[in-house]
């Protein structure tokens, strides 16, 4: 909590613009979504979506609640496979190999082992802080204590949580505050060093200070990770992302560089949404 309080003095809005980077669109593509549709049983939730996910960039997904942002995000790690009667169509090509993530021929474990996810509600396991971060490594068969220790510390540092928990790594994860739990979940997702990080409204359950913390973190993580973040908060999208996709009723209405989406949207619906006329 001490570090949280210290952060209260830093403004939530970043000073340097993330859009200043030249020619972000020429960045290599980490994943290519091609004509993706998705059905919950007979109810179609996504319609023919095509968009790139640029490598080492933050891609924000915005849109009114219920427009399919979470549904879209959960296609990347095949979360929908956990429930019966869900159906995908189209492709999500994971580069550089060009594996089709949602092909029935691709084992869902393949994307899950390469793509990490942080959920809307912090969901630490009922284990110690240490074991939460080590979980992904244990799943991958890492037993060596030294490697585990090192990776746990590294991940907690990257998630800006190390200083707050280093003296109580073996305490229950449930002893942490909501913001700390969410950073723990980020550390847990980072520990196996995924290529892509999916964040589904990671700050919606958090207070403004914890939110600022996580936003700063996302901005730092983009140096090494490809990040897709769902947010219903447009300021957040503007602050942390380089690319933005605007969803409405399961369709991708507009995709482009964040700067362009927020200053000169091509679609009137995007314009209406970002100016708060609906949503």
């Amino acid at each position, binding site marked *: 909590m001490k570090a949280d309080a210290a952060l209260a003095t830093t403004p939530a809005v970043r000073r340097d613009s993330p859009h200043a980077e030249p020619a972000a669109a020429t960045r290599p593509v980490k994943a290519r979504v091609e004509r993706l549709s998705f059905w919950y049983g007979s109810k179609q939730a996504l319609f023919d979506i095509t968009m790139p996910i640029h490598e080492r960039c933050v891609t924000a997904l915005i849109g009114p609640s219920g427009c399919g942002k979470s549904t879209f995000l959960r296609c990347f790690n095949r*979360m929908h496979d956990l429930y019966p009667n869900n159906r995908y169509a189209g492709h999500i090509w994971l580069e550089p190999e060009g594996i089709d993530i949602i092909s029935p021929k691709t084992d869902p474990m393949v994307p899950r082992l390469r793509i990490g996810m942080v959920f809307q509600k912090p969901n630490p*396991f009922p284990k*110690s802080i240490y074991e939460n971060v080590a979980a992904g490594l244990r799943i991958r068969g890492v037993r060596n204590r030294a490697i585990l220790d090192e990776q746990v510390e590294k991940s907690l540092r990257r998630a800006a949580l190390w200083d707050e928990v280093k003296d109580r790594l073996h305490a229950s994860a449930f002893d942490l505050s909501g913001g700390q739990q969410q950073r723990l979940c980020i550390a847990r997702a980072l520990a196996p060093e995924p290529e892509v990080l999916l964040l589904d409204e990671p700050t919606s359950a958090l207070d403004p200070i914890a939110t600022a913390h996580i936003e700063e973190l996302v901005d730092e993580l983009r140096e090494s990770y490809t990040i897709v973040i769902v947010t219903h908060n447009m300021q957040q999208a503007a602050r942390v992302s380089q690319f933005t996709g605007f969803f409405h009723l399961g369709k991708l209405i507009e995709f482009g560089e964040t700067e362009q989406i927020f200053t000169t949207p091509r679609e009137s619906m995007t314009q209406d949404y970002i100016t708060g006329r609906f949503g």
Partner: protein
Amino acid sequence: MHPSPDPLPRIRAARRRDLLFATAALVVLFIASLVLFGLILDLVVRGAPHLDADFFTNYPSRRPSRAGILPAWVGTTLVMLVVAVLAIPLGVGAGIYLEEYARRNWLNDVIEINITNLAGVPSIIYGLLALGLFVHGVGLGESILTAGLTLALLILPIIVVATREALRALPREMREGAFALGADRWQTVALFLLPAARPGILTGIIVGLSRAIGETAPVITIGALTFIAFLPPPPITAEFPWISFDWLWSPFTVLPIQMFNWTSRPQPAFHELAAAAGVVLLVMTLAMNALAIYVRYRARRLLG
């Protein structure tokens, strides 16, 4: 603003209703505990004088002063050992399978309906089934193994249902979190779900074992002896391989049968012995519960 009606009468009525319900519940609980406490007290008062070392080391006898429960408590312990070894892994395993692995199809629906209904079948039916199947059919005889199998079968549904419910009660975020990290199904179950579901599963196991330890009807049906003057062969032997499973095939008796036998005698002294055996049975059951509470407590401490 409309003038809102005075909310106080409504609040008062609500308070009265709560009070009424709480009082009624308390009274019922009090009466129930009083009856239970009275029964236990009666048992202890009548049985306590007989609870000496001889009582545990003597065989049954025609003379009440020399009669003991040695074969009965040994029999109960061994039968419960068989029950635990069979019913816990099978029941927990079946619960995991049905909850985490089985897809919805007619076969699994049939299994599910059967298991739920099995929990309601009178225990004597299990005895009859076991008599036909284990004693005569498979030829296991009137043995500890047969008793263990029968009682394991009897409590299997309890453990299966408890396991399923404990797993189902876990938040789906936990399952999703594990899968999203790249865990396969088995890792998800073994590393994350089972540890979190342990308290609930343990409760089911103890409820089941407590039921089994007190069962009389099915054990009589499969032919447990009501009078026995020998012990099963010891599980540990003097020569290689030092472990023997001959006891599994031995005839046996168990505490409830010993009690049943004594209460059906005319002499009052035997009734007191039955009370003493009842105390032993109660203590064994309570010990199992205490163990479960302890393990549950340790499991919960980490959950914060």
